[in-house]
């Protein structure tokens, strides 16, 4: 079976993101640095998560620990979006309703005047 190009691209992002993740900067981000500097009050609230702070529990090597969590997160977000989009695509327009885009001029004046057939 031939693997489609988008799947290679997706796999590349999952693997590449995982490989790069251990080298992400640990410095505070813009919001965290402002909270520290301005002394903005913040309550510490524990938050349960399977892969907290992009770390994999139970993996000893720190690099592997970050890489696995990142790859799993990227894959989870991609698969969820893909599944949702496939469902939306199933509900989507029927073949006879897919139309070429409207010309800019027609859309600007009144968008209802173009696109797929609409009986008045």
């Amino acid at each position, binding site marked *: 079976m031939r693997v489609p190009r*988008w*799947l290679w*691209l*997706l796999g590349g*992002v999952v693997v*590449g*993101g995982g490989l*790069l*993740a251990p080298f992400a*900067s*640990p*410095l*505070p*981000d*813009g919001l965290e*640095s*402002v909270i520290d*500097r*301005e002394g*903005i009050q*913040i*309550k510490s*609230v524990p*938050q349960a*998560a399977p892969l*907290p*702070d*992009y770390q994999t529990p139970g993996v000893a090597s720190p690099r592997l620990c970050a890489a696995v*969590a*990142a790859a*799993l*997160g*990227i894959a989870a*977000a*991609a*698969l*969820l*979006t*893909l599944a949702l*989009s496939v469902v*939306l*695509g199933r509900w*989507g*327009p*029927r073949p006879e*309703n*897919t139309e070429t*885009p*409207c*010309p*800019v001029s027609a*859309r600007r004046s009144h*968008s*209802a005047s*173009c*696109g*797929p*057939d*609409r*009986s008045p």
Partner: protein
Amino acid sequence: MHIPDGLINDPRVWLAADVLAVSTVGYAIRRESRRMRPEEAPLMGVMAAFVFAGQLLNVPIAAGVSGHLLGALLTAALLGPWRATIVMAVVISVQCLLHADGGWTALGLNIVNMGLVGTLVGSAVYRGMRRVFPGQAGVLAAGAVGAWLSVVLGALLVGIEIALSAHPDVVKPARALVIAHLPIGLLEAGLTAGALGVVLKARPDLLDYETVTFKANTPATEARP
């Protein structure tokens, strides 16, 4: 820019953001359920992967501060504002539920600040600029300006939310956040323009003005039974 639990403690502030996020994402799903074609699903998944990867790769920006790509404007440029809204909502939800990056009570706030601001406000600026400046240079300039704005406006909104939620000084947090995000916005602008440059070479059809605005403006299938 992910807001953790415990920062915005006034439930009126985060509940208002929840309502805005749920209604906007709900509208986007409903709208795209009439327009999405099955062959368009893969690009949605690929963009979600790109945005997730971009958001977890922090790079040092200035002394003691790091930043990362948001990707909302880039996604909106490739998929249109409403599909980008769906992608950003999924990414930010996974970050919160799987990685505890962004609090549960702040999920709506984070979807508004890092998602909707870029996919709807930033992309409106992007599309307006593309109308004024046609051609490849217009794509890059519009992408850079829209991306920079989406980061800085998002930061401003975080500051306003902190102020609304019982901070004694109204102006201070917003000013500090905007200043901290001016260089992070430049990173966003550079990465977005760079990515758009690659897309212009590899798949210019994805940036076709007609396609972008078609998804954005035109009701496609009202006659559907």
